[in-house]
């Protein structure tokens, strides 16, 4: 059968999706555009961030959108020493799950820090907001240690 080598070609799969948001995700993104963060209250009184339409445990519809803080506690982190194309930064940074003040579930985002030694579970971080925002999770450029410049 064929004994010459196989051929290769670069292929890019690209789709310009625009998603409709609905009122709950819409509220989350609208708040980001306005420069703050919201979650949603569950029947047990705890606050889900990001908000979602139905309670994950009971499937009850959720309707009470509430404001939470834009600073909080790192509940877990993972150092990204070799960032990949499309990720928040070209230089190394940490992924983190951050429980914002007033929220009961953590939000996934990037923490810009000098190195893994600067990260610790339980440390406080605060959001760095972009000057121009459009209603997108990346309206928050990243989080930084709260101790940094206060």
């Amino acid at each position: 059968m064929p004994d010459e080598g196989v051929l290769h070609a670069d292929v890019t799969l690209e789709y310009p999706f625009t998603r409709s948001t609905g009122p709950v995700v819409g509220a989350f993104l609208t708040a980001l555009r306005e420069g703050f963060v919201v979650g949603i209250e569950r029947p047990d009184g705890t606050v889900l961030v990001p908000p979602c339409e139905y309670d994950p445990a009971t499937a009850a519809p959720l309707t009470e959108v509430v404001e939470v803080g834009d600073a909080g506690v790192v509940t877990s982190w993972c150092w990204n020493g070799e960032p990949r194309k499309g990720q928040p930064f070209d230089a190394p940074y940490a992924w983190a799950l951050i429980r914002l003040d007033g929220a009961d579930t953590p939000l996934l985002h990037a923490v810009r820090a000098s190195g893994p030694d600067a990260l610790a579970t339980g440390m406080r971080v605060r959001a760095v907001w972009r000057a121009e925002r459009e209603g997108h999770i990346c309206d928050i450029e990243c989080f930084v240690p709260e101790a940094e410049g206060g």
Partner: protein
Amino acid sequence: MTDDPLAPVAPPVQLPPRLQGVEAVQSVRTPFRLEYHASSGQHMAAFLRAMKQKQILGERCPTTGQVFVPPRGVTPTSGLETTELVELPDTGYVESFCITRVPIPGRDDLELPYVSAWVVLDGASVGFIGLVAGIPADEVRLGLRVKAVWRPDEELRETADNIHHWAPTGEADVRIASYELIGAPGRPPAERQVRA
């Protein structure tokens, strides 16, 4: 359930003070992009190299003798690995076609209306899609005999895109006797068509 079929099903969302009266975000751009360095596989590589020489390769089924193009390494009528590649002529006929009058994003080169056709090469048991041109769209018909119009030699690469389109040869139409499934054992491809 209310009587109004357009009434929202979910209860209304209660917004915090800082969001009340603020124009809501209703959509968000979430572009999808992934990059790949694809490999052709062995049989497609043979097909693509042959394309560069203006040659079209198919594969012969070891069980039924039917010819499939392009070759993928296993014929669906046998489930067995291909052992024989065959060269096919660049002539055939139109087994079906579709006239399109709307443009495709990214294909400004296509003059409207354009005709996509299912082209069956002489000696092949299956067709493949191709562009038919060099004839007014409303004159394209089933059984139209066509021949490949290749790109200039200096533009030939390892790609099926070397065939720019299929043009009528001017020969008498083929009369298609039936559109039998290719699975009928012992049925050579020639029985699919009868000359008018």
